[in-house]
């Protein structure tokens, strides 16, 4: 297992509302510690004691893109930060997705969509065409549909209220695709539904409240078929065949 995470200072260059309560933030700085889609960063936010863990949505040599929803004081403070604000961020945290399969199905729900985009981009650069299901509550929460299209993905949007795409949950769209492997990220009830509905092996990315984000505090442990694992260190991505609900 690689432990490339390091602390660095990043400059916020863009902070934009892209959907209901959902922000897209670009940070400029060294991204060399990010090695796989599905990894996350841990951000020190002014006025908050604990860092805030957020999955990487996109990155290049000098920039990384994070998409997050305002759910508390930390994410609210981030959303209000002006371009030029400097942030202390630990990057390259967690073990991301390991690419397998030739006909992958990617399933993201809400703010579980960003790491799925990062993965879709990595797959596209390997010339693997991904099928994608992204699910939201309603149309005003939807983001990145066009971005997935631009990668050449076959995309279905689901909304719980039917205001865009297929009415229902991401699991209602799974049978519309032929796939030999799946990857997913989203709230735990969605992950469980995807786990039950899918017919192949796959990888699931979990969310948990974290203390440190680098394996020291044991705050985010979960039990698996192969013993207890720390979501922040060994996860956030776990293999379907090791998950215990």
């Amino acid at each position, binding site marked *: 297992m690689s432990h490339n995470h390091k602390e660095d200072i990043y400059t916020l260059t863009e902070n934009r509302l892209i959907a209901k309560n959902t922000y897209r933030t670009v940070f400029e700085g060294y991204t060399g510690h990010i090695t796989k889609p599905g990894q996350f960063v841990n951000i020190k936010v002014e006025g908050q*004691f604990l860092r805030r863990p957020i999955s990487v949505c996109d990155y290049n040599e000098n920039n990384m893109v994070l998409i997050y929803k305002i759910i508390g004081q930390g994410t609210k403070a981030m959303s209000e930060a002006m371009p030029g604000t400097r942030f202390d961020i630990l990057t390259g945290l967690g073990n991301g997705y390991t690419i397998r399969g030739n006909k992958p199905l990617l399933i993201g729900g809400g703010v579980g969509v960003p790491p799925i985009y990062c993965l879709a981009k990595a797959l596209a650069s390997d010339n693997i065409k991904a099928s994608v299901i992204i699910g939201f509550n309603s149309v005003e929460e939807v983001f990145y549909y066009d971005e997935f299209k631009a990668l050449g993905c076959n995309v279905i949007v689901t909304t719980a209220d039917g205001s865009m795409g297929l009415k229902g949950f991401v699991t209602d769209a799974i049978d519309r695709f032929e796939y030999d492997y799946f990857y997913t990220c989203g709230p735990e009830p969605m992950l469980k539904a995807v786990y039950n509905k899918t017919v192949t092996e796959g990888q699931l990315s979990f969310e948990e409240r974290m*203390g*440190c984000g680098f394996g*020291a*505090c*044991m*705050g985010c*442990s979960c039990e698996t078929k192969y013993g207890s694992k720390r979501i922040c260190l060994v996860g956030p991505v776990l293999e379907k065949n090791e998950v215990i609900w």
Partner: protein
Amino acid sequence: MADTTVKLCGLLLDNPIIPASGTFGFGDEFKNYYDINILGSFVFKGTTKEPRFGNPTPRIAETPSGMLNSVGLQNPGIDAVIERELPRLARTYKKKIIANISGFSVDEFVYCCEKIDKCDIVGAIEVNISCPNVHNGGMAFGVSAANAANVTKAVKAVTTKPVFIKLSPNVTDIVEIAKACEAEGADGISLINTLVGMRINPRTRKPILANTFGGLSGPAVFPIALRMVYQVAHAVNLPVMGMGGVSTAEDVIEMMMAGATAVQIGAANLVNPYVCKEIIEGLSAVMESYKIKALEELKI
């Protein structure tokens, strides 16, 4: 350069900076950030007789200037620690460590201390009678002077290593408990463990922590820790390891002025993995700024 060395129960430490139990694991995670041999020592993750998964998640919550945790003594058990963790640690860490032993009965404390007594890398034992996150044990030993005395007496009988008793701040009179430990032969006192607290999520109307309550740590508790270290250090004739919200070299000096011989760094490690390195590197300059030549006799 000011002299940062301290003597702690016969152990000569390069500096008084010691990462606190439960915030430093067995050192593995921090080796990626810096050479942990710069530390005075460190206290490993609270270890029990049997392996423990700990409490259900969420186990962590934000608080003003601090955090709550309800990890609940997750650890691989004393046998795995001795067979797996300590040999691995010994390959990179060349100093003595402090073993943190937790338990649910006097027999369990005795069992673990007897085993850890045979480990060369262990320079001292910290007996945790103050974990607020486990039921039927843990803190129950630390909130009664009689129970604290019983544990102290029992573990002292099975080890020749210095024994520090780690006390809970969730008590009416911490001095009485410290004195009871001293009377039964404790070699030192560690304090404070976390303060019991809770948070509620107004959206879900439920406690944030799955365990409802958790232990508060971080800068929020520093003044309380300082007060209790001062009280205990002035009431017993034993070295004290002071901890609770210490985050800077200035905090370390303050803690030593309150009477601590060495200072543990806890929650600060979790938000800044480099904090102990930064404190150690800055300590000498901070001492000089206050015209402190050595760390002994700082107690006011």
